[in-house]
């Protein structure tokens, strides 16, 4: 078939890129080869626009075993235990088919984790939807939530934390990011790097179908009259098969048979085989007649580009085929040797006794295009919110409106669709600062969280990047965990637009700065560009997934008030920053001005002191202060415990809105025994920590002196009402 400009473009390749392909091959590619190039050179696999920036991120500390570059990051948590984790986006598929898109997103990230030899122990997700008033939102929301649950529940891994947010910026492009966390023996981590020549390359898992073959639709129309039947189809997840695949892989990993292993994710067989060969500096030869196919007459093009789920590629040690095959047969899974490693450094494909493609591995990997795209710096938005210029609003009305808003109402309707308890080790479930999962059979636990602050990042990507890393760190600290490392999913608009590229570049700088200061490196991640429609890019939305270690499970903290008549202390300084706050967003729909400033030194000091107090057993409960300010943090503490508060009016001449709704960073609220107060006051003073003694817990009423008084039960009603109304359950 003649390769025309139309065909090239429909494969998402630029004409210059096509010239480069010809140069690398010293000839024209055939149609199959073109498809392979397009899969490997697209943004998703090649990271061509992001690589130069990602390189700046700190990726090491004394706990990091494996940083970015493998299927997932690996950190050391003592003894022989390692935690393996990564986050990934599945935004576009989820917009097209929310249930399957979200489900396969979960399936994909789980494979990244168990491929490395880890048993997954927790799932998290960050999901962003458009305005609830948008016609599409309800269907997308319900589909995504049940898809995430559908996959995780069935495979039996608890979904323990996440975030669900709404903003009209996502009307035409929702975000579905899934994170998986696994536990491995640190001496038994598996990597994707191939080693040795003539080693068997084995295909295991589900059969290959015509799922998700990109760009193929138009092209295949030309060589087949049954175009209707060849439409690229949506990937359907099969969590049951994935469960079998996971158990089979983990069983095989107990033996010494695997040289390297790689899941088939984006660009399926193509990217997995190329990646393994590339890392080992080898060639790979595949016999496509052997690939297990679901449909008849699948072409090499379809086999190589299919994104069918629940498949893996394994390179075995010589003579281990039988032993391995037995295990996969036990789990009723396909196990077929489809090729071997070679010393040619080529990807070489055979079909019906003919060589149908020969491409140097380098051309697909290290020689793929790399762009240092033009980017512009974000101008400081000097607009200052002045409450006097805005429509007057009553304090309690503002609070009630926020507490019952889609973004801040109770998310039980989401989390109750997720099995959070399966595996029997979930100590803290969704809804607290961070989820806590025990290391099975041991006296230690990990804490995990995902966070994002899109509007901070939109108004100032640099501060936003810093802030979101700090918030993640703060969340872990607040359960008593020592933060260790993060994974990140960078959801941005079109990188060919210099403004968007600027958001990306600066955001990375912000993340870098905070990670370095807090010794909280990045060990894995994912970049998702092209979120949005032509001119309408989404707010830049980096999502940070953090993991921390709790050495002693008896020192875990949470944000639920424990007792009546405890002292409530606010740690950290309050300035009353309202630009970009929930208060301004929700009540005035304004998104101007700078986000709150992040002072890394204060962040670190305040966090360290909180950890110290928790470890000394000096705290009854603790909550970090983030979006929504002090009042929302207090409300969450009350709502989760059914204990009220009585807060004194601030001594200084604060405006009440600034004081209670301001989103200054690095702050925590702690509940302490009154008798302990002098001791704690001394510790705080000795360590130069700024703090205010703001009030006490009390029975029944959520009360800000002379400003607001409401029964906690009523507050609970307000906080729980939104979803039922939205979903028509009460109508």
């Amino acid at each position, binding site marked *: 078939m003649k390769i025309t400009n139309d065909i090239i473009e429909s494969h998402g390749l630029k004409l210059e890129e096509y010239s480069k392909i010809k140069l690398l091959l010293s000839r024209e590619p055939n149609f199959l080869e073109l498809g392979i190039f397009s899969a490997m050179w697209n943004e998703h696999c090649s990271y061509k626009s992001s690589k130069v920036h990602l390189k700046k991120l700190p990726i090491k500390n004394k706990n990091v075993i494996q940083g970015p570059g493998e299927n997932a990051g690996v950190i050391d948590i003592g003894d022989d235990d390692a935690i393996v984790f990564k986050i990934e986006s599945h935004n576009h598929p989820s917009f*097209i*088919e929310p249930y*399957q898109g979200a489900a396969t997103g979960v399936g994909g990230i789980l494979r990244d984790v168990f491929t490395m030899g880890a048993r997954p122990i927790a799932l998290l997700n960050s999901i962003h939807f458009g305005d609830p008033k948008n016609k599409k939102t309800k269907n997308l929301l319900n589909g995504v939530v049940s898809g995430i649950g559908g996959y995780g529940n069935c495979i039996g891994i608890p979904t323990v934390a996440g975030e669900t947010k709404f903003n009209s910026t996502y009307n035409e492009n929702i975000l579905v990011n899934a994170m998986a966390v696994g536990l491995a023996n640190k001496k038994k981590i598996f990597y994707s790097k191939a080693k040795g020549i003539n080693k068997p390359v084995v295909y295991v898992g*589900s059969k290959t*179908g*015509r*799922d998700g073959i990109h760009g193929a639709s138009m092209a295949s129309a030309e060589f087949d009259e049954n175009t209707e*039947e*060849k*439409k690229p*189809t*949506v*990937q*359907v*997840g*099969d969590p*049951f*098969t994935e469960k079998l695949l996971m158990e089979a892989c983990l069983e095989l990993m107990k033996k010494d048979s695997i040289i390297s292993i790689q899941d088939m994710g984006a660009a399926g067989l193509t990217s997995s085989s190329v990646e393994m060969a590339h890392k080992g500096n080898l060639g790979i030869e595949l016999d496509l007649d052997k690939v297990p196919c*679901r*449909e008849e007459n699948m072409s090499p093009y379809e086999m190589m580009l299919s994104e*069918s*789920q629940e498949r893996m590629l394994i390179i075995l040690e010589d003579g281990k085929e039988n032993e391995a095959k037995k295990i996969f047969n036990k789990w*009723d899974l396909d196990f077929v040797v489809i090729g071997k490693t070679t010393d040619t450094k080529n990807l070489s494909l055979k079909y019906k006794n003919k060589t149908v493609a020969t491409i140097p591995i380098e051309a697909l990997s290290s020689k793929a295009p790399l762009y240092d795209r033009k980017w512009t710096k974000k101008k400081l938005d000097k607009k200052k919110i002045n409450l006097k210029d805005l429509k007057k609003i009553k304090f309690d009305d503002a609070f009630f409106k926020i507490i019952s808003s889609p973004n801040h109402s109770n998310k039980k309707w989401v989390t109750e669709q997720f099995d959070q308890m399966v595996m029997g080790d979930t100590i803290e479930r969704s809804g607290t600062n961070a989820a806590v999962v025990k290391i099975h059979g041991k006296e230690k636990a990990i804490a995990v969280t995902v966070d994002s602050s899109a509007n901070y990042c939109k108004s100032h990507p640099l501060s936003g990047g810093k802030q979101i890393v700090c918030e993640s760190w703060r969340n872990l600290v607040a359960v008593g965990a020592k933060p260790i490392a993060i994974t990140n999913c960078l959801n941005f608009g079109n990188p060919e637009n210099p403004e968007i590229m600027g958001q990306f570049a600066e955001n990375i700088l912000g993340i870098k700065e905070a990670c370095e200061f807090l010794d909280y490196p990045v060990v894995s991640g994912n970049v998702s560009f092209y979120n949005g429609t032509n001119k309408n890019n989404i707010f830049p939305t980096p999502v940070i997934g953090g993991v921390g270690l709790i050495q002693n499970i008896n020192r875990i903290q949470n944000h639920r008030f424990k007792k009546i008549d405890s002292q409530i202390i606010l740690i950290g300084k309050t300035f009353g920053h309202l630009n970009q706050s929930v208060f301004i967003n929700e009540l005035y729909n304004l998104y101007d001005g700078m986000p709150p400033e992040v002072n890394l030194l204060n962040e670190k000091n305040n966090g360290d002191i909180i950890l110290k107090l928790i470890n000394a057993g000096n705290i009854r409960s603790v909550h970090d202060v983030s979006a929504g300010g002090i009042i929302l943090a207090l409300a969450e503490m009350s709502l989760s415990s059914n204990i009220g508060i009585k807060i004194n009016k601030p001594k200084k001449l604060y405006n009440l809105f600034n004081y209670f709704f301001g989103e200054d960073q690095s702050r925590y609220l702690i509940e302490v025994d009154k008798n302990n107060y002098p001791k704690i006051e001394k510790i705080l003073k000795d360590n130069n920590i700024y703090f205010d003694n703001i009030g006490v817990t009390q029975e029944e009423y959520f009360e800000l002196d002379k400003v607001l008084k409401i029964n906690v039960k009523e507050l609970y009603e307000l906080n729980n009402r939104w979803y039922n109304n939205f979903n028509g359950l009460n109508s």
Partner: protein
Amino acid sequence: MKFAVIITLKKDVLDPQGKVIEQTLQSMGVNSLKNLRQGKYIELELNETDEKKAHNSIEDMCKKLLVNLIIEEYKIKKI
């Protein structure tokens, strides 16, 4: 008037459920089974005497709620 809507997965879409049922039957000794796909069957009773109108209204329900047109297709039958 009574109608049935038969909803099946489009041809190339994976049917994990059908696959497992097929394998189970085969392992139970059903050798002649070549292929099995599972779909949905919905029976509707309408207060409507005009068949054409009823049909149209069911078409509408299919598109708006009953069928996921991205992965499924459907047939409507009077019963």
